[in-house]
């Protein structure tokens, strides 16, 4: 397998210069030590071979771009995994709708992010199309999640989805069709942006499929020159196709206070509140150690970050961060616990980055034990 992969890479790289495309290799290595009753060493190595090419049609002014990323992942769970992370064809027309708008279309496999970023944020296969009129932006996307390898799938909505992950015979992840339509009005008043969107997903699993639909509203913008906020409200209907369908809601508040005079620091307050049957399509990472179910959850996050050495060339991209989180399961009325995460990230060069994170989760439930985790991340590009 290693030889096949090496031969594939060698052939790909040998052939690429002839087509005058830009190409490279990125290697990300994460080494983690999880400490609970016992200590467990976890490693994930990801090598990404990428290339892209772009050109502009002189007559129409349309900009075309083709990009692809092939990944090789080495983990304990699935030792060898080769996958296509991106295979995208894009075109952008700066003179759409009689020259008054810019339209963009992307086709293929790439990361699909819904208008809120809270419902779906996942690599899938499909199409997105947006048009920017200046005073109004429209967006449409549709796709299918079922061609993604199960090891890379974070589409975890139903018990069947979780079953796929733990079944070694399964190759592909959850099979769902999704569609979204959205509108954004930039700088509607006092530099405040407003967006509305409707998102739906159809579960193609033949036994008890669980479809859902979401309506979202996002308001964001500055309050002062250093204080910014984002407010999201999502209403969900899930499961949509069953008699006992229920209403759910997500309210997400994110406030950032930037303090450039105080060691280039920033304060962050983030509140994630989900109620009823609300369940996003992509399982979110809401903690460093504790990964709560996003259903009926209250999570408070208070964060502080700084880049104190902005004047020094070598360490100007060295940043420190601290996050304190509280988790509560609202449906059972239980405070899950508190989590503290401390981290340092250093982009030493344009092609070399280091990250070190350490965290501690203190549960408040008596049947749980405290957990710790230390994680080192190294990323380099060739």
């Amino acid at each position, binding site marked *: 397998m290693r030889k096949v992969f090496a031969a594939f890479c060698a052939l790909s790289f040998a052939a690429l210069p002839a087509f*005058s*495309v*830009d190409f*490279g290799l990125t290697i990300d290595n994460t080494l983690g030590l999880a400490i609970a009753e016992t200590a467990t060493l976890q490693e994930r190595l990801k090598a990404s071979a990428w290339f892209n*090419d*772009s*050109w*502009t049609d*002189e007559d129409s*002014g349309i*900009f075309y*771009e083709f990009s692809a990323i092939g990944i090789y992942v080495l983990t304990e769970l699935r030792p060898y995994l080769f996958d296509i992370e991106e295979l995208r064809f894009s075109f952008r027309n700066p003179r759409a709708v009689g020259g008054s708008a810019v339209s963009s279309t992307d086709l293929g496999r790439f990361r699909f992010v819904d208008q809120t970023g809270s419902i779906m944020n996942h690599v899938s296969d499909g199409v997105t199309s947006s048009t920017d009129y200046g005073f109004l932006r429209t967006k449409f996307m549709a796709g299918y999640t079922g061609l993604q390898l199960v090891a890379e799938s974070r589409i975890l909505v139903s018990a069947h989805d979780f079953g796929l992950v733990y079944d070694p015979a399964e190759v592909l992840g959850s099979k769902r069709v999704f569609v979204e339509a959205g509108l954004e009005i930039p700088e509607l008043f006092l530099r405040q942006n407003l967006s509305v969107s409707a998102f739906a997903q159809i579960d193609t699993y033949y036994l008890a499929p669980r479809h859902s639909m979401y309506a979202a509203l996002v308001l964001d913008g500055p309050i002062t020159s250093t204080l910014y906020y984002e407010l999201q409200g999502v209403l969900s209907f899930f499961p949509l196709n069953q008699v006992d369908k229920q209403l759910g809601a997500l309210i997400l508040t994110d406030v950032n206070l930037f303090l450039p005079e105080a060691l280039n620091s920033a304060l962050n307050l983030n509140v994630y509140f989900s109620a009823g049957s609300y369940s996003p399509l992509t399982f979110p990472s809401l903690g460093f150690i504790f990964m709560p179910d996003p259903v009926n959850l209250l999570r408070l996050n208070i964060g502080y970050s700084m880049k104190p050495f902005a004047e020094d*060339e070598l360490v100007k991209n060295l940043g420190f961060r601290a996050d304190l989180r509280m988790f509560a399961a609202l449906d059972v009325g239980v405070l899950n616990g508190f989590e503290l995460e401390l981290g340092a990230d250093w982009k*030493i*060069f*344009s*092609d*070399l980055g280091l990250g070190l994170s350490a965290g501690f989760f203190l549960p408040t439930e008596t049947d749980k034990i405290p957990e710790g985790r230390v994680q080192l991340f190294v990323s*380099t*590009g*060739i």
Partner: protein
Amino acid sequence: MKHRTFVPAFALLVLMAVPAFSQPTRLFDELFRTDGVGLATAAWLVESAVSPEGFVDSRDALDRLLGRPGLEAYKETAGNARLTRAEFAHIVQVAFNIPRGMFASLIPGPRYALRDLRYLGLVGKSGDPEDLISGPEALDIINRVIENGYRGRTE
């Protein structure tokens, strides 16, 4: 190849400051029109932007540029040979002493120079490294380099 239509502030200011029909005016006029900047013109643009005295003589610019350590490979290149986007990025990185990445330090050259300048936001994200650099894009890069405070870093 279509290029950006905006006029960099740096070039506008320079155009207003120099007398009509002078050498800089002629060279700027050429730059605005060309889809492929030649090595000699690039040398004049870069050395003029680097120099604290302002515009340099176009006849001396190429010698000054090629005298910089790291650009010896261009000595075999004809003055009117048109540069690629990556080659121009390499010249700019060396002339302005712009920080290099790990691989640009190990294997100096156009390939990694372009990536470094892209990372620093001095060159647009898209565009083939092997495409010829147009005059307006070259001016845009020099404008961004100056705006980001890289002028005066030359050793």
